[in-house]
């Protein structure tokens, strides 16, 4: 059976949910960040599917931008994590709770 739009969207949705699951579950900041990237990738998949099945280029172009922004974001985010590590010597989120009331 030729996979239709719904199949691709389903895959994208499941990937997104798994990524979110990872964000909720893991305590290592870096792994949480990777799961965030996974969520982002899921959305790119959905966008490309839409773009293909509706015959327009807009979705793909948007994916282009998403990849660009994700790359920039990862760079900055990791720099922040490294700076945080220098201060607190840890990357476990349950030890990064200075803003606790």
């Amino acid at each position, binding site marked *: 059976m030729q996979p239709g739009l719904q199949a691709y969207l389903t895959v994208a949705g499941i990937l997104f949910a798994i990524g*979110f699951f990872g*964000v*909720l579950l893991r305590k290592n900041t870096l792994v*949480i960040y990777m799961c965030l990237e996974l969520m982002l990738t899921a959305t790119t998949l959905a966008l490309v599917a839409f773009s293909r099945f509706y015959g327009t280029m807009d979705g793909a172009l948007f994916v282009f931008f998403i990849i660009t922004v994700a790359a920039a974001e990862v760079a900055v985010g990791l720099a922040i994590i490294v700076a945080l590590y220098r201060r607190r010597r840890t990357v476990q*989120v*349950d030890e*990064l*709770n*200075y*803003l*606790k*009331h």
Partner: protein
Amino acid sequence: MDLPKLLSLILLLPLGSAVVIALFLRRKGNVAAALSVLVGFVIMALSLYALFSWNGQPLEVSHEWLRFGNYAMSMGYYFNNQTALMLLVVSFVASWIQLFSVGYMADDEGKGRFFGGLSIFMFSMLGIVLADNLVMLFVFWELVGFSSYLLIAHYFKTDFANMASKKAFIVNRVGDFGFILGIVWCWDHYGTVNLAALGKIIAANPGLLGTHAAVAIGFLLMCGFVGKSAQFPLQVWLTDAMAGPTPVSALIHAATMVAAGVYFLARVFFLLSPATLHWIMWSGAAMTAFAGLCALGQTDIKKILAYSTLSHLGYMATAVGLGYPEIAMFHLAMHACFKATLFLGAGSVIHGCHHEQDIYKMGGLLKKMPVTAAAFLLASLANCAIPFFSGSYSKDSIITAAFLAGHDHGAINYGVYGLVLFGALCTALYSARLFGVVFLGTARGEDAAHAHESGPAMAIPLIVLGFLSLSAGWAVQGWTWAGGAMSGLIPTHCAVVFLDAFEKLHASVEATGAAFAVEAINLGVVLAGLAASIIFYLGFEKGDALAVKAPRLFHVLERHGWFDDVYDWYIAHVQQRLCDILGALDLLVFKFTAGWGSGGLAGLTGSLLRRAQVGSIHAYVYWFLAGVILFWAFAVR
């Protein structure tokens, strides 16, 4: 230049001067003084030019400024003969007093401030003079009150000056409360606040004045007059206002501002019902007599002159109450001349004696300050209403009018006649006392012994105004010249205000056949007073004769009948208690609603929400998810 533009220039020049002084010249006192004096003389010249080029027709110019619903607030000029007279008086007297101030305030460090205040006062006063509707008049009325507040507190480092300026402003405000109620009711009842329009309405339908609303409006409008012109019961501020520099006392509290109330009454005379006029008459006459008496109980030269002013304001009020607003304006003009001279003379004396104000430390100044003495003498004689001096024409007219009221309108009005005659007696008494103690005899203090005449800046205004105190009244003798443009020393357009009334009054008195008797009694009372005063006071070396011989009486007069003390007691005990109660209530309300109410609520919410900050990223993510689900549910419902 046509008249409206000329009037705008006259009105706005002092404002410009005040702004320039306030922004740039506060430290440069001499430049400020020069600017202010220059502007003053320019205004005087422009006013004279306006008067001579005026064709005699009343001018109404109006310009809408703000609009609220169907009420339009406008600014404009209403120029008729009354305006002309008042404009002449204000601009003329003010210019000479400004020149005097240059000499008087020569070594004062707040000169810039002072001349800025004088300029803003000129602007405000001219606004009152030229205003064409009651609201505009009220705006400038308040501005004049503000200028007075500013200038009385010139020596702001002394407590006395600060308290006096506050007192002046607050007491004025009390009167203005009634005033504004009157204006609002006037607009509601007659549909307009424009003076010319009101005049036409009343002229078309004189019966309107009989309604209760009209009577009430008259009384309320009178409240403004009571506050500004220091009538009973709000006269307590004028004597304390002497805390300001002497030129201020001369200009504001003798010649112009306090006379603004009388001018106002003359402008709205057609709105005043007989009941209001009755009240004005009696309270004015009573004030004349009482203030004249109190002047005998003062030893401060300025306070004596202040009570004298109160007395003369009483005369003006009596004239209005008797139904002769034109005579009141006449007396206003004459009074401005000689009272300004008296105050300027007092200023010269004070300056010469190094700021000594107690008359029992002066004496023998006749030889040392001849110019001042001469001017003071002329003005005092005018004050007492000696024939041919300016004051006599107006003051005697008022006394004559009082007699006529008794003669024609019921014997009870002879009481008014008696009061004003008594006032004339007192005037003679205190004038002679003042002149004698200050200028005659020997010097009683160190400063007086070394006094000398001050410079020309102070002498020239004295000469000019002194001469006018002698001659200003000659206008009524019918000496017209310059092709009818001048009557005596007053432009005809201004003199016309009172010439007719003067003629009519004297014709009425002639008709009663008692004219000669009335005049004789007037003169006799004055001469008797002068003689009695000379005998009683002069040559008495141990201080004030009255104080020594009748100390209780002196004390009553000195305390001004305990008016001030009554008010002080009321404010301290009744008013203050009320304020304290209100304050406590206010605090309670706010504590309750804001402190426990909204404040407490905010605090509670805050402490609840604070608990959400657990520091765990995962918790935040769950909250985030919850939010997303909420949004989603909202979006797809």
